[in-house]
């Protein structure tokens, strides 16, 4: 900690890259080329999603650049067909799965994190170290036994079964993140609240939770994207029954139909991506932080 306390010398006016290389042209070129290379697959898909079904099958998406302003070449038919053909329902299912799957672990973990950070109880350190260990345990370790329990109680294919599974799988990361953050709040703050007569519940709800909003938001976004994009948990615990399918399962099914469904795939893919992309563009800062922090999750 002491290493970074020295005051930073006022540096020269910020002109990035000044004096580093004689010309920035090669750098611009390399960055642009790589960014372009990374973007081409998605752009191709986006263009295809608005083309006539016959054109999607008949020619590459790049051929549109020859007649960009021919209005008969463009259509939203694929989107309406996709939404009517199961993806509208799947979108609702995915929302119904995702929101509680974020809210439940967030609440449960917040209480637990507070206990790990500010309460003393037997087994505290051992349990928390176990949580740290659980961070990297592959999801695959949990699937078979949980599926057996669910099948035994006839719970498979129900929403709560999936909510609680996502909650359980998301908890190690949530507890780990929140506890580290809450534990780094100044002890004097908590102590003085105690002296003023506040009990743990009051300190938690009125002091610690409001102060922990950034880390709560980061976890919420990370968990949202994780659950929204999840294919494995939904496939195993919700199944392939058309009424139950979430977006990823529906999309994988469509992709498996091959040539016959080829014209619907681009539009369908974008229906599954639209919400994550909105989150990505609007909350990029939280998104990055959540992702960075969540990088350890199994």
């Amino acid at each position, binding site marked *: 900690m002491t290493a970074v306390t020295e005051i930073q010398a006022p540096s020269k006016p910020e002109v990035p890259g000044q004096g580093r290389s004689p010309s920035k042209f090669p750098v611009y070129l390399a960055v642009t080329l790589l960014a372009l290379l990374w*973007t081409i*697959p998605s752009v191709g898909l986006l263009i295809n999603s608005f083309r006539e079904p016959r054109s999607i099958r008949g020619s590459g998406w790049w051929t549109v650049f020859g007649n960009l302003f021919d209005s008969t070449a463009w259509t939203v038919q694929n989107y309406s067909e996709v939404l009517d053909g199961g993806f509208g329902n799947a979108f609702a299912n995915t929302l119904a799965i995702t929101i509680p799957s974020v809210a439940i672990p967030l*609440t449960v973990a917040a209480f637990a994190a507070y206990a790990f950070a500010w309460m003393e109880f037997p087994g505290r350190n051992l349990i928390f170290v176990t949580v740290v260990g659980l961070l990297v*345990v592959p999801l695959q370790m949990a*699937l078979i036994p949980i599926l057996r329990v669910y099948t035994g109680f006839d719970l498979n294919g129900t929403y709560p079964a999936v909510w609680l599974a996502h909650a*359980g799988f998301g908890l190690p990361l949530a507890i780990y993140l929140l506890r580290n953050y809450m534990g780094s709040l100044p002890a004097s703050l908590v102590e003085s609240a105690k002296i003023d007569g506040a009990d743990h519940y009051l300190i938690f709800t009125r002091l610690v939770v409001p102060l922990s909003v950034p880390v709560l938001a980061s976890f919420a976004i990370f968990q949202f994207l994780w659950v929204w994009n999840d294919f494995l948990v939904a496939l*195993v615990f919700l199944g392939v029954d058309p009424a139950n399918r979430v977006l990823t399962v529906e999309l994988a099914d469509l992709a498996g139909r091959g040539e016959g469904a080829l014209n619907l795939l*681009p539009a369908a*893919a974008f229906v599954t991506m639209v919400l994550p992309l909105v989150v990505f563009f609007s909350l990029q800062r939280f998104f990055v932080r959540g992702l960075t922090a969540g*990088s350890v999750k199994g």
Partner: protein
Amino acid sequence: MSTPPVIELDGGKQRPLPAEPGASSNALQLWLLRIVSALVVPAVLVLFFFTFDFLRQEDTNKLFQVVVAVLVGVGGIWILYWGMDRAITAMPARAGSAVRPFAFAGPAIVLLAFYLIYPAVNTFILSFQNSTGTEFVGFDNFQRIFTESTYLISMRNSVVWVLFVPAVAVAIGLGFATLADKLPTKSEAAAKSLIFLPLAISFVGASVVWTFVYNFRPEGFGDQIGILNAIWVAFGADSLNWMQVPLWNNLFLMIIMVWLQTGFGMVILSSAIKGVPEDYLEASRIDGATEWQVFWRIVVPSIASTIIVVWTTTLITTWKVFDIVFVMTGGGFGTSVVAERMVTEFFTFNNDGIGAALAVVLFVAVVPILVINVRRFREQEATR
């Protein structure tokens, strides 16, 4: 009383409860109370979720289900926790302070125990049983997955994936972050967003994106609509079914994963690069170092620990990815990986024994990382 009554709310400094006559029965009571207080919230949740039939009926209005779920999942849980806290406050102060932490942390511990610890232990047991779990078969499952070519191919591919994907993703991410760092802030942010964007997409979505890169039309079946074949054919070659070219198809699948994961390393490495003190860089430049030398001798050593973290993280993600292979090839044409094979075995073939054994392989491989994480955490705690 040898000690004054300990007033609660003294995290960290509270002394253990003194042993008194009759302490053992008191302790037993206390532990019962603790266990009960930990169980109340999960039990009420499970009862509520699973006894109300409307939540299980497929034709119930989705929106209604979501609203109920959110009300219960957030509001209901808070009320439950609040009720537990009130009940504990009514207890004698000392008992209350001993029980309260379990009301706070207990529900999380119960969920972790049921959803992660119990299944992990059970999976170990299942891996020594036959496909339906009716009898023990010793090491048969493991013997099969380490000798039969189906499984050996999966393991070979998984090893290649974890060698290739993290190395390439980190290398490109580091190179890109370094170059973008030299651009004006706005261009840098825009360029980084484009590389980073795939991270918001699901593995299934990414597979569909790349379906239109790798699409294949045999000769005489119309124009190529996959861009890779279009370029390939433009150079005069015959179109190729990329997903079925032996061995190389693995590379094409791995490229999808690289495309997805590069942004992650790039973002984290980019902020690490910005943390390298400008003085070092300036000093070495004044001494006549080229940009290439500055990068390898100053920047890379300064951010080595970040590189290792990013590399490890990408490695774990890659090791566990199943969706890409599952969607693109279904594990056929010699492209199967362990994580995908595991799901196929137990979910498609109902072969729980082999599935569990493959899950154990997945787990055992990450144990070293688990140990390192725990050790590093302990060190951090010791210096807190």
